[in-house]
């Protein structure tokens, strides 16, 4: 019975995270919520008796996908920072 309640809680958390990513405006917040989403998902795989999937989802889903999203955002802010640098001191940049 305990397993059912825990699974229900996690599934509610999943739906909450999914809707939160759709709704949130700031991209960094979306990415972090998505990382939490795939962490919850890896625990849900465990409860569904699929341990292979939970390790893979944890390592590949939360791990690498999260890093890729974060790096993509970092690269995008980096371009803005360049554009900003170019405006305020064009002379200094050769």
């Amino acid at each position: 019975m305990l397993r059912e309640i825990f699974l229900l809680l996690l599934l509610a958390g999943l739906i909450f995270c999914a809707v939160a990513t759709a709704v949130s405006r700031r991209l960094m917040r979306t990415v972090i919520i998505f990382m939490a989403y795939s962490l919850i998902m890896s625990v849900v795989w465990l409860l569904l008796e699929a341990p292979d999937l939970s390790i893979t989802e944890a390592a590949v889903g939360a791990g690498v996908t999260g890093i890729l999203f974060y790096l993509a955002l970092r690269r995008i802010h980096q371009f803005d920072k360049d554009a900003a640098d170019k405006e305020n001191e064009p002379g200094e940049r050769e």
Partner: protein
Amino acid sequence: MFTSFEDLWVHLADNYIVVVSIILFGVGFTTLLFSRNLLKKVVGLNIMDTGVYLLLVSMGFIDGRHAPIIANGVTDTAHYINPIPSGLVLTGIVVSVSVTAIMLSLIVRLYEKYHSLNLDVIYELRNKEEHV
């Protein structure tokens, strides 16, 4: 068929995990279609895929049975769940990662060139560039 409304709710309550996986698929699908921001589209794509995988694994699950790792030589099938869906979803998760990696690199290159994540703005800039 479902005579009364109450039967309907009992059936949905029993299969709550199937309902959740289809809700996730729906949320991911709508985010993919409606979000103007490319990054949100990729997140929606991932949520859509995990929704399908949840549905697939929930079809392989059998109550009261354990993960298909043969414990101390007991190979009686009544003890283990169906291993096929978890094998298929393992392949699926890796497909989702490679697709996400490609979409993110596309987004970075698009931003490098057009400085926008909004697909319509990118079309405008592209049309302007096409006709100049």
